[in-house]
């Protein structure tokens, strides 16, 4: 193994992605869920840059930059939602947020 394989990055990304998925499903605290989402997005970024490097162009990098920017925006929105929920029900447990169903 003298030079870098594409797959080691991709698999790393995949693993992060899956861990993130586990996080968003299993975590109770909404903020934790947001963190897990970030894991997912980072996994994607790794993919993008890996492919970028492999293809030898910068589209991947650019894409990653956009993802990062968007992620920032989303986190902002998400935290706003967390706050408002917290304000209305004094809890950030997603389990409690199920007044509508069926």
């Amino acid at each position: 193994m003298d030079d870098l394989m594409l797959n080691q990055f991709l698999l790393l990304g995949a693993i992060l992605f899956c861990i993130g998925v586990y996080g968003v499903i299993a975590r109770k605290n909404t903020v934790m869920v947001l963190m897990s989402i970030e894991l997912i997005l980072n996994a994607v970024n790794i993919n993008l840059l890996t492919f970028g490097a492999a293809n030898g162009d910068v589209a991947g990098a650019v894409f990653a930059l956009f993802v990062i920017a968007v992620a920032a925006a989303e986190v902002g929105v998400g935290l706003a939602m967390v706050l408002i929920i917290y304000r209305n029900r004094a809890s950030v447990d997603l389990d409690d947020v199920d007044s509508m169903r069926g």
Partner: protein
Amino acid sequence: MLEQAWIIPIIPAASFFGILLFGKRLPRKGSELGVAAVGVAFVLALVTQVQWFQHVDDAENESEPTEEHAAAVVDIDSESAAPVQEEEQPAEEDGGEHASIEPVTREWTWFQFGETEAKVGTLIDGPAVMMLIVVTLVSLLVHVYSTDYVGGDRRYTHFFAFLSLFTASMLGLVMSKTTLQLMVCWELVGVCSFVLIGHWWEEKANSDAALKAFITNRVGDVGMITGVIVLFFAAGQTFDILDINTQALNGDISHLALLVASCALIAAVMSKSGQFILHTWLPDAMAGPTPVSALIHAATMVVAGIYMVSRLYGVFWEGLSIGISSVNLLALVGGVTVLGGAGLAFVQNDIKRVLAYSTVSQLGYMVMALGVGAWTAALFHLFTHAFFKACLFLGSGSVSHAVHSFDMREMGGLRRWMPHTFKTFIIATAALIGIFPFAGFWSKDEILAGASQLGGPGNYRVFMVVGILGAVMTAAYMTRCVYLTFFGEFRGHGQPHESGPRIVVPLWILAVLGVVAGLANLPSALAPDSVELRFEHYYEPVGAYFPSIMPEFAHPEFSIGIALVSTLIGLTGIAIGVAWYTGRIGLRGITERNRLADVGYTTLVNKYYFDHLYTGVIADGTKGPVARGANWVNQNVIDGVVNGAGRLATVTGRWVYAHVDQQVVDGAVNGSASAAQGGGQVFRQLTSGKVQQYGALLFGAAALFAGVFIVFV
């Protein structure tokens, strides 16, 4: 007028609408309209009659020179190996007899399918003319009679309206050119009978009777429809009666088709003409007003079946191979009916029901006659029977008018109060029993003769025996009927009285006809040429469309033996009554001399003679074996079957509706609906409200789809 015959049914039809629309406003509540219409129809019928005679005579006169036809006929005749015929039918007469008398026809297109045209029109020939007279005459008399009889009835007007409609449809039936038209009128008369039987529909019994009549007839109509359809296609898509007959006789139609058709049509005859086993509606139909019974259920409508057979005789002739067989369905049905009907007449207490069953058995005679090939005899009997049976019915009506009941147990001794009714009734009875020289004698005699002489090997002798038996029974039950009604003591209440002229006059007219009608067909043996066999001469449709061109077709010859036998038979039947009657007088003589004996004997008489003669001789002698059995069968089996069928249908209907329709069929539908709802309930679990489970579903589904497609694509 032969051309314009269509006018005749139109007139009463018009009067039907007339009466319906403004009958109520007329002074006599519309009856005058009906009477007038039928009167005119009668006159026109007479005119037609006369013109037809001329037509026939002309046909003969010009048929003399036309050799080839005559020749043809002659050589047919010569090889027709009926020895009977050879000797007693002079050749010149043959020529006359067999000169093809073309019927006068007229037709219009009714509607067409593609190239097939359904026609409607008039077919005027012997039988038609004869029926025209019978129908219009009896109808006229009944109309007159009814003005008195149903006077003051709440539906007086409607009564006459439907009498008119009936007359119209019956006339239409007799002059039908096509089987389709025949069928239409056939149904129409059925409806009229339905309406008139149910005339007093307030009592359920009456409406029941009406329904029974109509539905039983519908059963027969299945046969009618089938027969007509089979003939229609078998004869190359035509309804035309003449065509069908001709083709049937020329062998253009397969024997099978003819057989099927005639069997089907026999079913129709059974229902319409009250033959066993579809006869049960006829006695019930007596629920209707008596004039109706006289007109529809004795004189005219019920003979529609016989008339239809006589119309399509070619079909039956070939289909049942009447000419060469010695037993066939038609004759069989007739024979059974003769005996069955007669037997049942014994056990009735309702005078009209007696007459009804007697009608049944008389119709049986006619059917039997047709079955054995005695065409003329059948129609002749139809002719005479119409008069005297109508007379009997009207008589019974007159009686009931007097005693307000039809139950013979509430009558008796009426001869003192109702001389006219009595006399006419006696005459008619004599005619029915067939006493020389009354009408019935001649016609019945011809039938017996036919049964004995016609047909293939061995002839139809069986049916002659049947006929003779029937004659005995007829005599017997009529005697009983007459005795219970007119002799003995009056057992009813109130003061009986003779009916008014509008009732009596028709009675007399019919009675007279009941005497003289028989003279219409004097056998050649007994009469000069000028008057012999006039009926046969003028009314038998000779020509290509009639079996007369077939070698086997022949006329029975008057045989003195049968005549005597039948007369004796009749007399025996009466003898019983007479003997017993005179015996009663003798006894009364004694009682006048001896009080004690008087007491003893009167009781003895009133019990003994009555019981002995009535119960012992008549009942045990005849009713016992035949009638009681027949009656039991009739009430429990046949009637049971007929009514049971109805009840069965209803029950089945209920079951099907409750279990199949509402549960299976409908259930399936509603079931699927609720299934969908249930599915909805299940799938609602997907949206549990927990967003993280949504997420799990999202990621999981994505992964799952990806996996599935990776594997399977």
